[in-house]
């Protein structure tokens, strides 16, 4: 009898345990690759941000899910001084850090954590600066070190950031992945133990999920962080099934082995649309693919030549052939999802006859030039080589002979930054949803000197508008300035604006409230499964 009771109790216990296990909601995301690491400030790849900052960490300010709009994150509110130089952040109380096998936090998030996370990247003498290599590519490429004068702790729950010059995109910058907030207490503990690099390898954050295990090239397992400041997530477990091949990713979604996948093959899109169990979500990407003329070289210093070569290119053919429908013709240097996008800009029509006339007017005859095509697939250009071939054929029709040139990716970036090209295919994916992050970085006079402006085009009027817009925080006024700048850009034609990609996400129908991030990242905060 006793044994029977025990068996019944055991059976009941097991059934309950299994029941609980069955009820645990697990979302499987077929990611495209392994993260480079778990500290987002050390890297620039979206794959790394998906696996680290988006799930594990928070920032002072956050971008609203599925939008570029800023909302409070670890800072509940903030004030910006009228001169735009001083940002004061009031921090959120009661925010907990993850508890892991290496670390049990003894205090809540406070100003020390903010100072630690930002000063590590800012101050070359910071004890953590050289840990894990000492390279902070985003922080450095956005010149934050030159921009920020000081970061101070006013009290435990208030932080003050002072700038050297007004920079209205600063708030959006603080929502970017590199500005994720780490635990200073954990960092101190790891430093004392002589293993500071563990801070970057075994992550502890305040994010909605915490890391359970990672097997390189295979799987990343997360569980919902029950004490997350916005409450526990609807799902219990999040799994990244690392699946590099897009065709295989689609097969996994189709078979129900994954719920969400990024970057489908354009060739699979029709099949995905027809699958009754899958929604194909889509959105214009926050990017632009362009061809830049080296305006320091003749005859590209003459705007008539640039305009003519704009008119000679059949962009629709590029969208059809290279993007296979997953792109949209670009007419501005910023994508339509960014505020201040100028709808009134008139793109150059495809008109080879007019192009020929304009070239003749500029005195250009028998022009021989080159088109640089990058060797890698990028979100804004799925096949640069093919694109270059189409442009080459279009230009041949107006009497321009172009040779296609390509280098290894790192070499390509280096040489084009040095201005070795005549014309170069490249593009940009936005970081913070601010128009400055496209126009100033890619077309400003400073960027023409540093090489980020591949057209090496420095127009005083255009640059003046951008500089003015940087210094004011009134969005309506900034919009007006950027809209005007876009018209100047189009008239001067330092680029051929080619396309903005369309991002597709196959999502199984049982997934509830997944939203496409305009930044191209994958967030599972707030997502549920039916």
């Amino acid at each position, binding site marked *: 009898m006793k044994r029977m009771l025990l068996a019944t109790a055991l059976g009941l216990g097991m059934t309950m345990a299994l029941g609980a296990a069955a009820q645990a909601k697990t979302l499987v995301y077929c990611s495209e690759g392994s993260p*480079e690491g778990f500290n987002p400030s050390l*890297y620039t790849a979206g794959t790394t941000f998906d696996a680290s900052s988006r799930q594990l960490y928070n920032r002072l300010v956050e971008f609203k899910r599925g939008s570029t709009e800023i909302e409070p994150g670890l800072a509940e509110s903030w004030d910006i001084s009228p001169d735009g130089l001083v940002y004061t952040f009031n921090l959120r109380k009661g925010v907990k850090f993850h508890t892991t096998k290496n670390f049990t936090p003894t205090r809540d998030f406070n100003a020390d954590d903010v100072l630690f996370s930002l000063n590590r990247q800012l101050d070359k003498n910071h004890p953590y600066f050289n840990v894990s290599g000492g390279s902070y590519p985003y922080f450095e490429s956005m010149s934050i070190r030159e921009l920020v004068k000081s970061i101070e702790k006013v009290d435990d729950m208030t932080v003050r950031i002072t700038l050297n010059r007004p920079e209205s995109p600063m708030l959006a910058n603080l929502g970017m992945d590199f500005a994720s907030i780490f635990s200073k207490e954990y960092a101190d503990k790891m430093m004392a133990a002589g293993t500071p690099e563990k801070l970057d390898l075994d992550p502890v954050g305040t994010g909605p999920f915490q890391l359970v295990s990672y097997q390189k*090239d*295979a*799987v990343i397992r997360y569980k919902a962080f029950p004490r997350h400041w916005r409450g526990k997530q609807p799902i219990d477990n999040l799994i990244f099934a690392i699946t*590099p091949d897009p065709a295989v990713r689609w097969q996994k979604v189709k*078979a129900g*082995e994954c719920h969400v996948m990024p970057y489908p093959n354009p060739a699979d899109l029709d099949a995905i649309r027809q699958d009754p169990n899958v929604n194909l979500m889509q959105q214009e990407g926050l990017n632009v693919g362009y061809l830049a003329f080296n305006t320091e070289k003749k005859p590209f210093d003459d705007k008539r030549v640039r305009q003519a070569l704009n008119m000679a290119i059949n962009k629709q053919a590029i969208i059809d052939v290279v993007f296979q429908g997953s792109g949209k013709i670009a007419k501005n240097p910023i994508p339509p999802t960014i505020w201040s996008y100028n709808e009134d800009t008139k793109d150059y029509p495809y008109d080879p006859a007019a192009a020929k006339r304009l070239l003749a007017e500029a005195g250009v005859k028998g022009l021989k030039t080159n088109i640089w095509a990058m060797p890698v697939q990028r979100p804004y250009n799925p096949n640069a080589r093919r694109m270059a071939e189409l442009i080459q054929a279009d230009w041949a029709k107006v009497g321009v002979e172009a040779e296609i040139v390509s280098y290894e*990716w*790192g070499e390509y970036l280096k040489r084009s930054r040095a201005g070795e090209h005549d014309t170069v295919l490249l593009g940009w994916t936005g970081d913070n949803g601010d128009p400055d992050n496209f126009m100033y970085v890619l077309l400003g006079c400073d960027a023409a000197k540093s090489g980020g402006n591949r057209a090496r085009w420095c127009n005083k009027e255009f640059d003046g508008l951008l500089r003015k817009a940087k210094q004011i925080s009134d969005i309506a006024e900034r919009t007006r300035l950027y809209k005007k700048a876009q018209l100047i850009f189009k008239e001067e034609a330092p680029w051929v604006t080619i396309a903005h990609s369309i991002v597709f996400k196959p999502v199984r129908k049982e997934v509830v409230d997944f939203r496409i991030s305009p930044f191209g990242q994958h967030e599972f905060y707030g997502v549920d499964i039916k």
Partner: protein
Amino acid sequence: MFRFILTRLGLLIPTFIGVTLLAFLFIHLIPGDPIEVLAGERGLPPERHAALLRQLGLDRPMWEQYGLFFLNILRGDLGHSLVTREPVLGEFLTLFPATIELSLCALAFALVIGLPVGIMAAIKRGTVLDHTVMGVTLTGYSMPIFWWGLLLIIFFSGFLQWTPVSGRISFLYFVEPRTGFMLIDSLLSGQEGAFRSAVSHLILPAVVLGTIPLAVIARQTRSAMLEVLGEDYVRTAKAKGLHPRRVIGLHALRNALIPVVTVIGLQTGVLLAGAILTETIFSWPGVGKWLVDSIFRRDYPSVQGGLLLIATVVMIVNLIVDLLYGLINPRIRHAR
């Protein structure tokens, strides 16, 4: 025999040094630098770029970098990955069991099918069976791995739903990596169904990776058998009235196996090369895919270390094959 082994081991030293040089030169001579790749379109100011190169020791002359690399190898230190900052040896050892598991299963598949099929084709020379075997193996040999893998996934995983699409085990099971071999770890985990799940995940990649070795082994076995079957001693054995099974199994096969063993040894390199594609398509976390990623990122220490370790494995396997000759055929042992 002892002297033979010593000579073979001695030959490994210059080969090894050559491999270190090749591994080093291979990644350093292709253009591009890791800092540029890491920074991407955003770029870095030239002074930071130079500072980081200096910090990584990449600004030193090539011979100095090689010397340092070589000295560190002697100390057993392959350096740290420039990207993940993890020790290269550690990363390799974590991923290598997956590649070995896959390669061994692929080889087993190739042997279990390739050997008997090759023998049968030789015995039934000129028949429909022989022609079929030759035709099918030629097709298998010519099959591009990537396409073949996708085809099998679409048919067996998508259409028939017999096998999972990719990965090493279902996510329902959380198997702690103890040996790194999923078949063993899943058994050790004691979770019901874990082993079956691991096996079902292994079938398609092993078949895909094993296809080319299977074709080579079958064809090699057939031609070696044909040669041996025409030898005098086989005729004598037959004339003595021995059972055909004994003639083929004992007299013919043992001699025919020598070239086959050579081929199997050479297939180790083919398996490791094929693993790169197979691992990518089946999301198999092995060293092949890791090495390719490292090359694209210009992660010098990982590429150098990875190439060196893989080359060492291939050298050791070929050494073992050399030694096996002696076991199979004592004449070779004496001849040397």
